[in-house]
């Protein structure tokens, strides 16, 4: 976990941002 350096962000920060993005996507997409 400590080696995680994707986009120079901490693992938790990246996953919280991803969570917000996918919550928004689930809300926004309607077919």
């Amino acid at each position, binding site marked *: 976990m400590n080696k995680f350096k*994707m986009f120079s962000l901490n693992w938790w920060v990246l996953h919280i941002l991803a*969570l917000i993005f*996918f*919550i928004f*996507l689930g*809300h926004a*997409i*309607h*077919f």
Partner: protein
Amino acid sequence: MTIRTYVKSTLFLALIAISLGGLLLHLRIHPASQNTSNFLPIVSGILSVIVVPLLFSGKKTIGYGYTLNGFLVIIGTIGMAHFAIDHWPEPATFESIVLKTTLPDIIVLWTKFFVGKAIFDLELFGYDPGRSKVGVTYRYPNTGWWIVHLVAISTVYTISGWLWR
């Protein structure tokens, strides 16, 4: 030209061809002017055709290319599955579910994932034919890690769609 460059170029062409095909297909079947949700495949398609190959071509950015490519496939899978559920065939027989939903499109999309994985794995692990494949399945960059993310993102997307309309 080395075999490495040749194989990499072939895989790059495959990646761009399938991405461009997908983008044009989406533009043909449902233009963004009809529904703002149709911007999702267009933005994903443009990222796949331009940004993903650029990231894949740099030694330092190949990991980002691999990651973006995989997440675009996951987003496409979830988006098309959502579309299929909202346009469920009537009557829902085995044949209609297999042939009249977006299932074939989702299967085609996964080609893009595996082509990207081949580019990444060949660059990361080398072209030695005798080299063993090692590593834990559920850890990055292995396929199990992607399955974990597919399940997690599907869950978040679905719950969000139910609770926050």
